[in-house]
């Protein structure tokens, strides 16, 4: 898969080199970016996730597919801590984060996007990304205004250019189109040196042109950033992912590379119904 580095300032390029080195070290030690060990999540009598065991290597890009209600978004919520697992353990880069609150997991390099855009409607586009950059660094409680030459503001503007939102940087989020809001979702997830991102249906509601832009953005992510993508558009999912996990009724149903999954008769049976080759 072609992965070209995004156009970024020199300070970030240095950071990228360091992180790519770190990725090489992680891969050489065989450490996983994400490990789920017997994770279950119950809502009363409903078992949304049942005994999930999943490992994702550092820098790996994986698609999680499945029909509605398969448990994909619940899986994301269990990983981020929005809805902690009822049983089981979650490890991020070797560290057990099961009992950590959401913001602590985020500060360890985890990011996510949401199925329905969750943005700060009353703030400008650049303020949204600035806050996301600041969220993973110090100075979150600062009572001083960021200066025009503030490094975080600069990184925020660079990120906006990378997701093609530079022209609307000062617009209020409420004024953006649906497609632009989805792109801003991705910018928030990319802010603040992420190491592992969970994309929840990022292509939902996008036009064909916007989907192409999305694929380009995902393919151009720096190699140290691994991700899991939930996507109903198989074209998007299979073009950006190097491995696929199929879910069904809260369980892992099948794992493999995109070609294996595409040609698997069980998957075809599940997705398309019986009688399809």
């Amino acid at each position, binding site marked *: 898969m072609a992965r070209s580095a995004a156009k970024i300032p020199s300070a970030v390029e240095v950071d990228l080199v360091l992180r790519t080195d770190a990725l090489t070290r992680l891969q050489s030690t065989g450490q996983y970016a994400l490990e789920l060990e017997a994770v279950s999540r119950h809502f009363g009598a409903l078992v949304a996730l049942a005994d999930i065991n999943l490992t994702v290597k550092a820098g790996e890009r994986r698609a999680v597919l499945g029909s509605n209600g398969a448990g994909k978004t619940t899986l994301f919520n269990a990983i981020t801590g929005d809805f902690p697992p009822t049983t089981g353990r979650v490890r991020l880069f070797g560290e057990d984060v099961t009992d950590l609150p959401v913001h602590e997991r985020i500060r360890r390099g985890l990011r996510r996007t949401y199925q329905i855009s969750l943005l700060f409607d009353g703030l400008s586009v650049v303020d949204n990304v600035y806050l996301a950059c600041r969220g993973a660094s110090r100075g979150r409680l600062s*009572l001083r205004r960021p200066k025009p030459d503030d490094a975080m503001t600069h990184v925020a503007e660079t990120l906006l250019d990378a997701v093609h939102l530079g022209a609307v940087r000062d617009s209020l989020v409420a004024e953006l189109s649906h497609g632009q809001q989805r792109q801003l979702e991705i910018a928030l997830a990319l802010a603040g040196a992420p190491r592992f991102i969970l994309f929840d249906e990022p292509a939902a509601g996008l036009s064909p042109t916007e989907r192409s832009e999305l694929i380009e953005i995902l393919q151009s992510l720096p190699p140290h950033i691994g991700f899991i993508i939930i996507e109903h558009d198989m074209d998007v999912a299979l073009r950006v992912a190097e491995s696929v996990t199929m879910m069904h009724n809260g369980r892992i149903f099948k794992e493999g590379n995109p070609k294996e999954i595409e040609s698997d008769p069980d998957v075809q049976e599940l997705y398309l119904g019986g009688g399809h080759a």
Partner: protein
Amino acid sequence: MANISLIAGKGVLPNIHPAAAITVLFLLFYPAFASDFFVFQIGAYSLVLGTIALSLVMLAGYGGMVSLSQLTVAGLAGYLMAILGHNSVGVMGLGWPWWLTALTAIFAASVFSALIGAISVRTEGIYTIMITLAIAVAFFYFVRQNYVIFNGFTGYAGVVPPTLFGIYWRDPTPFYYLSLAVAAFFFFMVVYGARSTFGLSLQAIRDNPRRMRAIGYDVTLHRIFAYFLSGLIAGTAGVLMVWFNGRISPGSVGVDVVIDILVIAVVGGMRHPIGPFVGALAFVLLENFAIDLIDRERFNTVIGTAFLLVVLFSPDGLLGLWARIRERLRLRKHPQSDGSGVH
């Protein structure tokens, strides 16, 4: 309308709006042409009440947390002025110097506010209102029933500001300027702080707390810190309040007065920090002159009706009403513009 520059030079009060410039000049020279009654009872009292309501606007307008405990926080500061400093009742009154008493009272009020925040920030909407109202009611009954520290039903009297630089600061004009200085300081701090990293994050938490967690913010900590800062504002106003009245008793922190602060903030408008001062002025004018419209005992009917009218016809308060009138006048002048604000 074109902006003007009051003072030439880079970064020195650039682009002050003429209306703002006229308001500032009016406030500065108000004691020169107003009677003592209007300077003290109307001007200074509006500024004190407006400052307490400003602390609510900071929490509710920027943080989405409607707290009914802001007057309680101010009341604690007022009580501490009497307990730690001087009073004429002969109970407590530890005789600390005024500056140490004031600093301690303000800090204690801020910590108290942060504690209220710690209790209430995990709730939202009506539940936050109920919890903070419960705290305000509990404080009222506590100070009314506690005679050892709070002197029960009687409370404290003879709590006055010091004579400093040869000026007795409870005289109408000095007290007006003291209140104006405090109000202006916190007004500009809130305006400045709204664009600070913390101010932006507070507004973002108001818009979407879940997303704020998902970009690394400890939402609970931020909310509690907002309560602490609002406590600084309310506590300082509480010191002014007890100096203004010269006394403090359970009646000063009763439920009716607690609700008045919410009424002031809503009537003025929560969209801008000037709103609570506009609301406070309207409230104080009604409080003083309702007797000319209706029987004194019916004041609450007048303020309640005014509140209902504002909420019904202008949910964003007098500020919103003024904005709509301006927009209508602008449309009449330039009928081609649809005023949609979409560029």
